[in-house]
């Protein structure tokens, strides 16, 4: 039962263009969403997050959009750089329901390749 879905396994874009990574979720209890970036042989590193009370959060070249009615979020990277090439994981949690510990539910990940 995949509660967090990243339906596209890979994306290839040209340097300088926009990268759009999509994520869908099924659990309406999720109220906190994160994107993690992972290089080979390393652990995931936190990139950006958004709470369900917002519909947009921006941090430099990275912007996350949340559409609660559609249970959909997306990560926009603009302009894309070759160093952005990595696997990107979407994750979600029911923070308020959970209280303490973060129980993140991850998608399968999407491999982004930015070509010079």
């Amino acid at each position, binding site marked *: 039962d995949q509660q967090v879905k990243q339906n596209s396994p890979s994306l290839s874009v040209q340097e300088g263009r926009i990268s759009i990574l999509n994520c869908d979720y099924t659990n309406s209890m999720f109220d906190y969403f994160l994107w*993690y970036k992972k290089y080979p042989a*390393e*652990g995931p*590193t936190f990139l950006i*997050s958004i709470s369900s009370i917002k519909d947009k959060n921006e941090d430099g070249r990275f912007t996350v959009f949340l559409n609660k009615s559609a249970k959909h979020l997306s990560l926009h990277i603009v302009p894309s750089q070759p160093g952005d090439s990595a696997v990107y994981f979407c*994750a979600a949690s029911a923070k308020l329901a959970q209280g303490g*510990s*973060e129980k*993140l539910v991850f998608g399968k*990940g999407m491999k982004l390749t930015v070509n010079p």
Partner: protein
Amino acid sequence: DTAVSQTPKYLVTQMGNDKSIKCEQNLGHDTMYWYKQDSKKFLKIMFSYNNKELIINETVPNRFSPKSPDKAHLNLHINSLELGDSAVYFCASSLLLSPLHFGNGTRLTVT
């Protein structure tokens, strides 16, 4: 300085053996986790400890036993290893309700 370090990085062992993976964090976090990334690439939580107390215990076989001697350490001991245990195991830590910091993973191969 590595923030979340886990050892070993690679572990190859035979079915039926018992093995341990160690994890240490120097971030001063109060919560630590074990996640498993299986062959289908899903990252799934196994355990979570907050201040040495077990908080989250997902549906994991009893052969897996986490141990937290102090806030900075969370080790994972696996008894009677099976082929299906082959995966990458990630340790992580966080402050309460803050994003997780992951270690670089331990690739376990059971033959």
